[in-house]
């Protein structure tokens, strides 16, 4: 269970980027965060694993507040929270399997991690995860040789090997062609059910959100304006989310 309570963040004084954001997510739920550019979607996502330090509120993962954790505790929380990026953020020069195994670093001693020593069990798990995302034949390829959709699936495998409770997806399909995008979304959806995950994705594409998400959170100018089941998303709400913004800008 992930509970966010009254999250606040401002990058500049008196210009809040997030105001009083609260929502709950149950395991096994695929959540889409939608809203116009600059509304604060990325800020929410990145404060959930504290890549961005927020200013106030609570982020409870199974009842423990991530925000008050010290450095060591934070590392332990972070390894329970996988992250998938728009630009995949892989080490392009390393092989697919090496990138997947990077997800294990949070569990290793500093020295073992520094020298990249992984156990046989970890390697086997990496292989089975690659099979799951359909890349078992690519394990020894360099990531730079893969297509965008394949890279994103490596990114997903990397987050799965963390044995996460939560996966955060920051615009996971924004750089992909429509077919690969469908593919990745389906994969994320299936994994959410299979592993009983909390999967939270920032999305630009409303049709994708409607099609795949169980729960949709709408953000506008740093405020939460919608948090319901996906089928509750109506035209009116979309207008509040997007249109008024556009009319304002035209003035």
């Amino acid at each position, binding site marked *: 269970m992930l509970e966010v309570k009254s999250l606040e963040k401002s990058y500049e004084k008196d210009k809040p980027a997030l105001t009083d954001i609260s929502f709950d997510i149950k395991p096994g739920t695929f959540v889409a965060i939608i809203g116009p550019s600059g509304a604060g979607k990325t800020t929410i996502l990145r404060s959930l694993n504290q890549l961005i330090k927020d200013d106030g509120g609570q982020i409870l993962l199974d009842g423990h507040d991530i925000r008050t954790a010290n450095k060591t505790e934070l590392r332990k929380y972070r390894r329970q929270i996988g992250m998938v990026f728009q630009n995949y953020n892989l080490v392009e020069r390393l*092989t697919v*399997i*090496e990138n997947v*195994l990077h997800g294990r670093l949070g569990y290793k001693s500093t020295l073992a991690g520094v020298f*990249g*020593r992984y156990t046989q069990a970890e390697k086997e798990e990496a292989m089975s995860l690659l099979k799951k995302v359909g890349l078992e034949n690519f394990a*020894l390829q*360099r990531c730079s040789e893969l297509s965008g959709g394949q890279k994103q699936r490596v990114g997903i495998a990397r987050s799965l090997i963390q044995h996460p409770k939560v996966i955060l997806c920051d615009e996971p399909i924004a750089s992909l062609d429509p077919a690969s995008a469908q593919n990745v979304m389906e994969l994320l959806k299936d994994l959410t059910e299979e592993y009983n995950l909390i999967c939270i994705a920032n999305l630009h594409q409303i049709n994708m959100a409607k099609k795949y998400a169980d729960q949709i959170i709408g953000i506008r100018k740093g405020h939460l304006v919608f948090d319901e089941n996906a089928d509750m998303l109506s035209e009116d709400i979309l207008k509040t989310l997007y249109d008024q913004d556009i009319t304002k800008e035209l003035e």
Partner: protein
Amino acid sequence: MTDSESVLQQPKTPKSPEIKLHEKSLSRTMIIVVFASLVLITGYTLTHLDTAGVQINVAIKELMTTMNQMFLQPNAGTDGLPLLLQALGSSVILSILTTIIGAVFGFLFAVLASKNLTNAYLGASIRVIMAVVRAIPTIIWALIFSIVCGLGTTAAILGLSFHSVAYLTKAYSESIEGIDESTIESLKVTGAKFWVIVFQAIWPTIVASFVSWTFIRLEINFANAIAVGAAAGAGGIGYQLFVASGMSFDFHETGFIVYMVVLVTFVLEFIAVKIRRFYLSR
């Protein structure tokens, strides 16, 4: 990288076959080989280095005294500020002048040398000539010209210009070769003349990188102007620096000159950043 390989050498358990993390690849091997040989060469060189019997700790102590005099107690020395400023000014002008020459001729040669513009033979021969010119250090160019022109500014200008032209030809032609083929084609089909294409399509496309490279060269030329002044007796602040540090051993003055030079390089860098930003924003 090497460490993950040593993992592979662990004894294999009979049941589950070892899972490889990467295959042998040429690029991996090449990186390791190059790094290893560089380190070996360095090790050999450092252990066979001729130190002329100088005791390192004494020398370092002496160096610290010198540095202290230079950086903490600088003064204009016997030459005085006006003379030094004049020398500095002539070095700056020297570097600007040679950069202008380098930019003009460099651009012309770059156009003629770029693979996407001219016929292969002309381009290749210009590239080879420029590579040879570039391989000869500026200081040697200056010394060569000083035989014909006598020691002094003319030799320095010619020496610096030669290297600048060769350097900028390479830099500009790489920018030109990066241009999208279609830009050039679209003008070719309109029947535009060669130099019209150059100034209407190529020039506007590369102007930002042209400006970038030119200012990088200006900074290099300023450093070279000092070097040529010192080692080829071509005058300017480099000569004053050489006299102060190598003949009159006045390290207070050396420090003063170094500060002046560093200040100029900061100003050049600042101007370069501003102008680059201006051209990139357009």
